[in-house]
């Protein structure tokens, strides 16, 4: 029996553990002993391995070597993300490294046949991961899950077995079935579907991939079924929370940066030669878009203009004037770079409550209107009054802006049929989560996911006035804006060049910028996810207003 062990060990040892092969005979005899001695020869080299585990470690090292050779060039995350506890403890160190790689479906063979007892032995390191998985899945509140357990979740196995892939596909099918039941109004069947899906989730890895997205959609569906379509808790997030989530979304992935830089470039080009300019921002948040514009205006040939910025944002509770604070910060920056600057804040909880007189536009100045993912909120139709989008578009037009920059999600989430909307949202947000996987910056990633999760919940579980995430694709916006009296402005090669450079800076290789008839879209692997366009009011008043 000892000879058998030494032969298999010799066969399975990879080059890196060659020192262990020379130490085979003495430690294996110690295997008979109950005491687990640290292997003497390896200890001399600085590694602590229990003699009984030498065989396991050697096999794992071999597997690690093949994984490193075959993995899709993802090795840098080993350097940055993994917490390597105590490399001298060779067994657990190799295990922690191995858990970083997606293993091919060889899970059953991981169970090592212990030749002495002829029993299946699963090593300690693997079993520590297993109990975590059911714990993660049975907790239904995914929001808290992603925040609290981020660290444990990251160190879990990311093993995708054939069984899991099958479960993933089944999960998608069940999601569609459940959505169809909801559309039909068959809530009892939908509820049983939900329970089945939650059971299925325990067998799917929810750290990444379809499991994670499915978890959010299941959450949204259960919210719709059990809490109704009012969407209270989702839309009730405070403005402060929203700003924080928005900020982390800004930093985790390039979509907002792309939006800001592209819009700024278009505004900069439109303001060329004008000395008195006024920018109206439909959603100020932390004002992250404007420092770059202020700096670009400061350095433009001919000197900076007088810049006025009007920021629209939700009213802040408890007396704090957050809009004014942001305005003060921007003013300080503008002062440092010698740009004459004036700020005005307009507090409004909904965009349709804003009236043009609040903006105090001077007729002699050039106006730019900037809307980053705000116009789609106006698409909810209330039959009692004029549709808000038309009201807002008409007063924008009355301001006669030099340019209106519109950035919107490139998705069709405003279809009347629930199932179509659900299907489209599933595809869209799966792609978006895939692109987030490339982000390695914590805690941005977790909070960015919560930001996206809120969008998902709003698209799926709300209706009527509560549903504000009514995304429409670029083609529909083109029709709508042309019909409201705007003509498109081409974004130009400078914007395209800047966007391409910005994306190259992001480490993930999957992002792509495309030009779409004068508009720029940013997407992940040829699926556009966000579209930026620029518009100008048609000067004569002959445009048709839809009735």
């Amino acid at each position: 029996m000892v000879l058998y062990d030494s032969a298999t060990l010799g066969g399975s040892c990879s080059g890196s553990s060659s020192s262990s092969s020379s130490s085979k005979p003495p430690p294996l005899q110690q295997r008979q002993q109950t005491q687990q001695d640290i292997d003497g020869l390896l200890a001399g080299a600085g590694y602590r391995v229990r003699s009984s585990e030498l065989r396991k470690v050697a096999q794992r090292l071999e597997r690690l070597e093949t994984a490193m050779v075959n993995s899709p060039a993802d090795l840098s995350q080993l350097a940055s993300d993994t917490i390597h506890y105590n490399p001298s403890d060779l067994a657990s160190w190799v295990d922690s490294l191995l858990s970083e790689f997606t293993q091919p479906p060889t899970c059953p063979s991981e169970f090592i046949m212990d030749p002495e007892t002829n029993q299946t032995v699963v090593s300690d390191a693997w079993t520590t991961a297993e109990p975590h998985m059911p714990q993660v899945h049975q907790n239904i509140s995914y929001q808290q899950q992603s925040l609290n357990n981020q660290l444990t979740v990251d160190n879990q196995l990311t093993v995708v077995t054939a069984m899991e892939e099958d479960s993933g596909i089944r999960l998608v099918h069940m999601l569609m079935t459940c959505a169809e039941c909801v559309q039909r109004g068959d809530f009892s069947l939908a509820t049983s579907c939900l329970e089945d899906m939650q059971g299925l989730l325990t067998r799917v890895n929810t750290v990444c991939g379809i499991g994670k997205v499915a978890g959010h959609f299941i959450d949204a569906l259960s919210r719709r079924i059990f809490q109704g379509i009012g969407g209270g808790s989702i839309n009730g997030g405070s403005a402060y929370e929203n700003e924080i989530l928005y900020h982390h979304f800004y930093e985790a992935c390039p979509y907002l940066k792309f939006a800001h830089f592209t819009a700024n470039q278009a505004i900069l080009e439109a303001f060329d030669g004008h000395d008195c300019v006024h920018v109206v921002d439909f959603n100020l948040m932390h004002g992250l878009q404007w420092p770059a514009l202020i700096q670009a205006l400061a350095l433009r040939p001919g000197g900076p203009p007088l810049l006025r910025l009007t920021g629209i944002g939700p009213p802040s509770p408890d007396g704090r004037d957050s809009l004014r604070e942001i305005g003060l910060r921007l003013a300080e920056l503008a002062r440092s770079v010698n740009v004459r600057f004036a700020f005005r804040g307009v507090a409004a909880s909904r965009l349709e409550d804003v009236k043009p007189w609040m903006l105090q536009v001077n007729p002699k100045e050039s106006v730019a209107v900037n809307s980053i993912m705000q116009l789609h909120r106006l698409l909810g139709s209330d039959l009692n009054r004029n549709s808000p989008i038309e009201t807002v578009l008409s007063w924008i037009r009355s301001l006669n802006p030099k340019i209106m920059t519109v950035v919107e999600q490139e998705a069709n989430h405003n279809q009347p049929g629930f199932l179509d909307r659900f299907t489209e949202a599933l595809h869209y947000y799966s792609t978006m989560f895939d692109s987030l996987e490339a982000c390695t910056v914590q805690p941005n990633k977790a909070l960015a996911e919560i930001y996206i999760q809120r969008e998902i919940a709003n698209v799926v579980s709300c209706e009527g006035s509560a549903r504000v995430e009514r995304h429409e694709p670029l083609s529909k916006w083109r029709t709508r804006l042309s019909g409201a009296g705007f003509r498109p402005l081409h974004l130009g090669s400078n914007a395209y060049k800047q966007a391409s450079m910005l994306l190259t800076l992001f480490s993930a290789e999957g992002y792509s910028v495309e030009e779409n008839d004068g508009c720029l879209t940013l997407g992940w692997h040829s699926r556009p996810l966000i579209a930026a366009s620029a518009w100008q009011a048609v000067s004569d008043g002959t445009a048709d207003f839809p009735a």
Partner: protein
Amino acid sequence: MVQNHRREDHETGGENKEKRPKFFINDHVDILIEILERLDGRSLCVAASVCRLWCTIARNDSLWEKLCFRHVSPPPSSVRSVVLALGGYKRLYTGCVRPVRSRLGRVRRASWARDEVQLSLSLFCVDYYERLGGSNSNGRLVEKSSPSSLMFLCKPVNV
């Protein structure tokens, strides 16, 4: 005592003019600056640890300005006041220009050199703005102590 004499002989031998170096770079600061101007960023930082004189010179922002605009035609004079207001050229180089150049270097196109600097400037400005927020906050924006919009430049890049 004999040994002492020998040592003194050595010292006098050392003070012999043929053995003393004729040229000591620290006596010629203008040449030193010319040389340091041509170093890359990392070497310049290392040079700052050589001695006090080198440290003073290497910390001079104009050296870093030349480094930022290497390979690019000299910018208009207005750029300098803006960059100094936002934190200086050394910070601009180490925080933005160097990571931008190294990442874009893999897909380097000749026409991008100036745009790289412009993009770096924009990112630098956003970073300054965030630093403003961090220092002025009354605790509200305190989560931003670690995240910064430049963090994506600091993380290692997947090749």
